[in-house]
């Protein structure tokens, strides 16, 4: 949180002005990391000093998809997997808006995988905050494209045998210009990363490894959300600039976090020569 702001606010949580307080408490389970990630996002927005009227959030379906419903910005809760193309439509026809896609791993990498690849290829100026909890939690704990090998889910009752996606590598290969990964515990660094991603012209991805305290941890006997946070504390290694091919997440093994990609590529609006080309850096 922006300390300056928290120092002056006496009358409520400093995040409240950016939340739809009429919808709080939210639906996330105790020990879930999505609320924490939302905290980081709001902190980043406060740091950025961006016009909040010109900021909008698009979410897909799933636990993380509910973010759009709690944040007090123009916010869209659209179809499963389709947050990125919906955001593309907004961004292309109104380039001065800052569009943030806030959604989960299943939504963005599985059903929306194709859109993820093509948005990165186009290098459209979106900030993607991808909360990775290794499971489809909203529907009751099914195997996800990020579920580590051998982890139990309700649809991999004998342990997952499919190799998972390495999201930073996927993003880099597809053409994203900024890729970082943090856990929900690395809250200050995560906030900093979101600020950087936001300022970065082009397709920027911040992956947030977050505890699913209800399904992933229970099915795999990892305890509660707090135990998963402790695990991140112990097993996260910060390696900025690590080649993304080394970023596979193995079951209950070390998680490499950091900023991996920060580069320049021509962005779609900058190069298409469209009517709003000058609006883009």
């Amino acid at each position, binding site marked *: 949180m922006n300390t300056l702001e928290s120092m002056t606010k006496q009358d409520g949580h400093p995040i409240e002005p950016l939340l*739809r307080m*009429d*919808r709080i408490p939210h639906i996330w389970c105790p020990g879930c990391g999505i609320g924490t990630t939302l905290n980081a996002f709001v902190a980043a927005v406060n740091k950025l000093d961006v016009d*909040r*009227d*010109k900021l*909008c959030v*698009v979410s897909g379906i799933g636990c993380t998809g509910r973010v*759009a*419903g709690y944040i*007090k*910005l*123009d*916010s*869209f*809760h*659209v*179809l499963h997997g*389709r947050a*990125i*193309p*919906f*955001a*593309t*439509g*907004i*961004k*292309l*026809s*109104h380039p*001065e*808006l800052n569009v943030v896609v806030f959604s989960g791993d299943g939504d963005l990498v599985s059903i929306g995988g*194709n*859109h993820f*690849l*093509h948005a990165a290829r186009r290098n459209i100026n979106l900030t993607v905050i991808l909360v990775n909890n290794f499971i489809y939690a909203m529907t009751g704990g099914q195997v996800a494209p990020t579920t580590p090998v051998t982890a139990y889910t309700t649809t991999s009752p004998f342990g997952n045998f499919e190799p998972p996606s390495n999201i930073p590598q996927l993003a880099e290969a597809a053409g994203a210009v900024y890729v970082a990964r943090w856990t929900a515990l690395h809250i200050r660094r995560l906030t900093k990363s979101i600020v950087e991603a936001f300022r970065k012209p082009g397709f920027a991805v911040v992956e947030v490894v977050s505890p699913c305290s209800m399904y992933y941890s229970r099915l795999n006997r990892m305890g509660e959300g707090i135990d998963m946070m402790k695990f991140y504390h112990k097993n996260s290694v910060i390696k900025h600039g690590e080649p993304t091919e080394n970023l596979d997440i193995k079951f209950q093994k070390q998680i490499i976090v950091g900023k991996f990609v920060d580069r320049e590529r021509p962005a779609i609006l900058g190069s298409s020569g*469209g*009517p*709003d080309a000058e609006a883009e850096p």
Partner: protein
Amino acid sequence: MSGSEACAEGALSAGCGFLAAYPLVPALEILKRFAARFHDFGAVYIQMEDEIAALAAVLGAAWTGRKAMTVTSGPGFSLMMEHVGLGVMLETPCVIVDVQRWGPSEGIPNKPGQGDMMQARWGSHGDYEIIALAPNSPQEMFDLTVKAFNLSEEYRTPVMIMTDESVAHMKEKMTIPPTADIKLKRRKYYQGPKNKYLPFNWGKDFVPEMVDVGQGYKFHVTGLTHNQKGYPVINAETQELNVHSILNKIRLHSDRIAEFDEKDTQDADVVVVSYGITSRDAAKAVEKAKAQGKRVGTFRLITVWPFPEKRIAELAKTAKAFVVPEMNYGQIFYEIERCARGKADTHFVFHERSRDNGVARILEAIDRAFKESRAS
């Protein structure tokens, strides 16, 4: 000008500011024309990675205040079905052009079909209503595209132009009227205080006011069942309110929306009901039947959905039979059968536009209709 080009021109004249699509035969020519011209109009054109993304982007663009459209054919139309539901639920004005080809599945890409008519109405899950128009000439491709944008803006709903390969590829003389003569409508904008805005404030006519994203209203919209505020609520009352409103928005105005073209139906014994390209062969068949001294009328659907139930029911009282030629194995036919309510016979004609003479088959069906109605 070809039907496709007329459609693209119609869109630009209607102020379409955003087109996202995925190339699909036989809808390519619309894209080509639009892509060549959009710069001059300050519009945005993007080819998305698939049809799902195309309609998603169109819905996103529509919320920024632009008039937005996508263009596709059967297989792409099927892929868009989930987003049609979202468009209805978010009450987003947009236009979808479906250049129908022969189906199902890949079917025959360069052969016209009319097999998506029921899909336009029923293709997405859940209860909803949309508007669908069926042009039968390049001139109508232009006019109805403008009309489609107007309807979509007026009723905050997806509007479909259900054309077909023949009309899209047909070249005819057409006139683009001077800009001043093209009447354009704009969505109702909300004017009140920023913190009081309700994105789904269903009033008496069930058409809520809209705002653009990025103006500080900080609204939230969701595909989940929602209340006036746009917030998801899980109970039967909200579901009833929400579904009832999006249905009645169209159903209450169906008489105003419905447009059709009638000829000599007043004293006709047999009425030939058709739409799109089929109506041209139907008209020829009717001419021939009249030459034989038969009292035959034509009824052409311009608005297919909402269906002109009342008018068909009225006609069923005066006419003895309906003949329905379609380039499918029976779709709108069922609607005619339903609305005729046993008052008039219904005869389906499988219509195929090829070397095989479509006109003759309609003529045959007219003859059959006369014979059978006399027998009964």
